């Protein structure tokens, strides 16, 4: 659990750390869209190169980064496995009942693997270099135009920042409850599937009880400090578009153009 990197923030002062959150968010979305346009090795190569540059610029060591996303590899392998077994077309190499492996499905599987990896990498860079509060702020900035149609942008941003704020708290609490139940003889993560599902109950019930208590306490605390609505909140930090953002966008747009040019 402690090695899990996805969704955590690593304090720093790198180029990526200094970019404004709204442009980091949009760049990540843009990058994900570009990934779906790539369809051969060269275009994926361009994107892989770009992500390596981004990771280097973020000041996070590559080995640490790779170790951190390793737990997610099983999810990827599972999805890729399904893709390989169930897609059709091309020469059949192996067949068993409804399952078949063809040369095309192998190639597709490989590409999906790369796609997943790239998406996880860019989103990990985003969360590693941006505090949860900054992300919520970025979302608020991006969604601002929706205010015209009376979409509750500020409330949504507040909800998001509260949710993100409680992730580490609940993680800590989960760790404590895990330990408490372990010392009461629960074996987490071993035994049959039914056993494991049963073992989750002593973990989840206290965790949810705790979460609901936190919510109640927080709302009381907010009211006590004079919170009325989320629309007229002032901000302590204001994130402005900078030269770094413009330069990054230029690099990403060029890379995107290159992918479109290089794809089959």
């Amino acid at each position, binding site marked *: 659990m*402690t*090695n899990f990197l996805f969704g955590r923030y*690593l304090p720093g002062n790198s180029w990526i750390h200094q970019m404004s959150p709204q442009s980091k968010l949009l760049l990540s979305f843009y990058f994900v869209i570009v990934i779906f346009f790539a369809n051969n090795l060269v275009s994926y190569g361009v994107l892989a190169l770009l992500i390596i540059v981004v990771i280097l610029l973020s000041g*996070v*060591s590559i080995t*640490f980064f790779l*170790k951190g996303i390793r737990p997610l590899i099983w999810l990827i392998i599972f999805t890729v496995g399904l893709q390989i077994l169930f897609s059709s077309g091309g020469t059949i190499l192996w067949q068993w009942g409804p399952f078949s492996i063809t040369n095309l499905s192998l190639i597709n599987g490989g590409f999906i693997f790369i796609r997943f990896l790239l998406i996880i990498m860019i989103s990990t860079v985003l969360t590693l270099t941006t505090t949860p509060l900054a992300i919520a702020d970025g979302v608020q900035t991006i969604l601002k135009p929706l205010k015209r149609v009376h979409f509750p942008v500020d409330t949504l941003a507040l909800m998001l920042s509260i949710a993100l704020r409680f992730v580490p708290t609940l993680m800590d*609490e989960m760790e*404590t*409850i895990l*330990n*408490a*139940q*372990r*010392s*009461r*003889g*629960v*074996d987490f993560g*071993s035994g049959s599937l039914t056993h494991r599902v049963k073992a989750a*109950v*002593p973990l989840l*019930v*206290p965790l949810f*009880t*705790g979460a609901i208590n936190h919510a109640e306490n927080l709302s009381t605390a907010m009211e006590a400090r004079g919170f009325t609505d989320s629309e007229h909140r002032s901000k302590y930090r204001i994130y402005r578009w900078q030269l770094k953002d413009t330069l990054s966008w230029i690099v990403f747009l060029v890379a995107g153009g290159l992918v479109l040019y290089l794809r089959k």
Partner: protein
Amino acid sequence: MDKAISFNQVTHTYQANTPYAQNALDNISLEIPTNSFTAIIGHTGSGKSTLVQHINALLKPTQGSVTVYNRSITPTTTNKNLKELRRHVGMVFQFPEKQLFEETVIKDIMFGPKNYGMVDAEAEQAAIEAMKLVGLDKSLSEKSPFDLSGGQMRRVAIAGVLAMKPEVLILDEPTAGLDPRGHKEIMDLASYLHDHDHITIILVTHQMDDVVNYASEVVVMDKGKIVQTGTPAEVFADPKWVYRMQLNLPTSAEFAQQLIDAGVPIGQLPLTIDQLADRITELARKGENPDD
């Protein structure tokens, strides 16, 4: 005396080999005798909780080894077979009421014993005994633990640990947030378990009064190291040092210290309220008959 637990040059690093790495224990060697009542004190963040979590293998040392009743835990110990060790070491966490989850009080208390292989009837018997020990009325056994008061929930959680019949009981700030009466009852329970059932008690606490009133040994921690071990009298002998460790003197000692500062010849620092009272009566008697 036998050693129940020994730490041999234990270092623990949280999140080793990452930018978050943090040394919580630094080359610790410690022996805790069987049937002792050991208090572990130190300011917040000094490594007390990390230390006690090694005793039932919730944490494994990054370097060195921990031996609990001839079973040793090293950095390479696998997660299998730890259950047997944990059965001997009961652990009451800070705010243990957070671990309650069952529908009824009795079921929650039976949870631990059943995990360690007791059959239903045995576990129920153990649970009923544990409820009696912690002072929970029998009528509560079919209630939901979530309907109880905070103090009662704490007792249910402690009963859940006692029902497993551990030989070592670790109490991590068991009285935090309790009223004075609840506090005294929990501490008296620990004392009873120690004297009557010969359980080795390890108490993590910030209450210096509890240390002098209940503990036989004291371990003082600072910045992940053990800086002092000994009896309460030895540890509190030097008030200046105690303050430097960001700790307090027990109330009686503090009171006596103020008397000394005001020029009253108290002599050796009394630790408990009884010692203080004795010292003062002695002085008062001397005052009445100056010729003695």
